[in-house]
């Protein structure tokens, strides 16, 4: 990825009259962190980067922005939002479009074909971070870590994030501008995390999830970071009726996570953000990936590929599987 081209394009798009701001990635405040950047001019655009650290899915900001009632006489700011997306992020945009969560003319999609991101926890474990912001680059067979002036080459398999191992769509599926040539797709790995749980007996599965959800602190990071969780009034926060009590214990935590996983069935685009942001390191992604796998196998459907497609839970086929029905 040519960073100069990226920054020039970003500056140009952000400077357009019909664009409110552009959302991209910039270096964080220390170590390997990356922060989302909201760019409105060329000066801010000069800070944008695209590196193996840019795991954050920026599509969540399309729906996170609050729309307040305006004072009389003030017109709403209808300008577009420009968004930089990787393959997985673009699927979130496509799914939002299919669900009519956003309109096509509200967003300018800038596609960044993605060779794969590093797992930030693995990275920090093997190559401890310092307070100086570090840089990462892609190389032909892996990654190059640049810390304090020194370069360390690392093979791809050592640090590649799990979600990238399983990735089927590294190239953006929807875009207005493409910043680079498409990358070569790779054979997605077998999802061992999900298979491992599938192979357990029912009691073993429950024991596993009980342990995991006992650690949940109900911070709602998973829900808030998810680009497809954008209900203004989340049903799981409601009090009358109370679907999930606000008290934090493993039955309520389990109910919360199961309900959320169900609401995302057929919509989750497997960007892995929920797992990345969880402060209790709960492997939430497994629930969503299992659903995605079942839906792929049984219904032949994959969300986030057709901006004009039909949402999964709001449609049906006359010959849907019904082997479970008495």
């Amino acid at each position, binding site marked *: 990825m040519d960073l100069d081209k990226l920054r020039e394009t970003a500056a140009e798009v952000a400077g357009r009259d019909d664009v409110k701001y552009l959302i991209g990635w910039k270096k964080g405040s220390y170590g390997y962190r990356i922060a989302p950047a909201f760019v409105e001019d060329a000066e801010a655009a000069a800070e944008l980067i695209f590196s193996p650290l840019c795991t954050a899915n920026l599509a969540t900001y399309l729906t996170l922005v609050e729309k307040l009632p305006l004072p009389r006489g003030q017109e709403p700011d209808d300008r577009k939002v420009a968004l930089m997306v990787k393959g997985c992020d673009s699927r979130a945009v496509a799914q939002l479009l299919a669900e009519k969560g956003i309109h096509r003319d509200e967003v300018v999609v800038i596609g960044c074909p993605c060779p794969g991101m590093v797992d930030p926890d693995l990275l920090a474990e093997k190559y401890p971070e310092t307070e100086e912001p570090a840089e990462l680059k892609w190389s032909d067979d892996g990654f190059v870590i640049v810390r304090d002036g020194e370069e360390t080459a690392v093979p791809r398999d050592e640090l590649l994030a799990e979600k990238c191992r399983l990735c089927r769509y590294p190239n953006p599926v929807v875009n207005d501008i493409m910043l680079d040539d498409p990358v070569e797709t790779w054979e997605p790995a077998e999802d061992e995390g999900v298979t491992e*749980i599938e192979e357990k007996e029912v009691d073993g599965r429950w024991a596993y999830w009980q342990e995991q959800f006992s650690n949940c602190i109900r911070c709602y990071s998973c829900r808030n970071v998810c680009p497809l969780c954008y209900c203004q009034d989340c049903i799981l926060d409601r009090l009358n009726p109370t679907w999930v009590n606000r008290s934090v214990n493993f039955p309520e935590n389990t109910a919360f996570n199961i309900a959320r996983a169900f609401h995302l069935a057929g919509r989750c685009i497997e960007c892995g953000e929920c797992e990345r942001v969880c402060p209790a390191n709960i492997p939430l992604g497994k629930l969503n990936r299992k659903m995605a796998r079942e839906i792929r196998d049984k219904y032949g459907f994959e969300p986030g590929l057709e901006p004009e497609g039909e949402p999964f839970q709001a449609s049906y086929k006359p010959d849907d599987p019904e082997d479970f029905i*008495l």
Partner: protein
Amino acid sequence: MSANFEPNIVAFLCNWCSYAGADLAGTSRVQYPSNVQIIRVMCTGRVNPLYVVNALQQGADGVLVSGCHPGDCHYMEGNYFARRRLGMLKDLLEFAGVDPRRFHMSWVSASEGHKWKEVVEKTVEDTREAGPFEGFRRRQIDW
């Protein structure tokens, strides 16, 4: 578990087919287990899968959802949506560690009083085997 365990089953029945079918079983004096608490909904398409989760949270040991046969839905397509959604819910619950014997779905038409009896018997037996539901049943846990 003890042989005396009587499971609590909550059933969501669609008004036009399954509820009528259950009613027919009653008027025909068909004998079937009394463990089922029936909640009448107008159509299975109206059954929010979270009702199933909520029933389990609130003390049900098993849940049954029953509706019209495909093609016979009073509202044309409700049961098709239900088939999709509840099929996925069953997979999700199973993956999360809830015994698959606790959740059943069936097509029972208004004239199938005897099928209703069989469906209930199967549901009750399966749930009895699975035992009392602990899982994510609501508990007032003290820290």
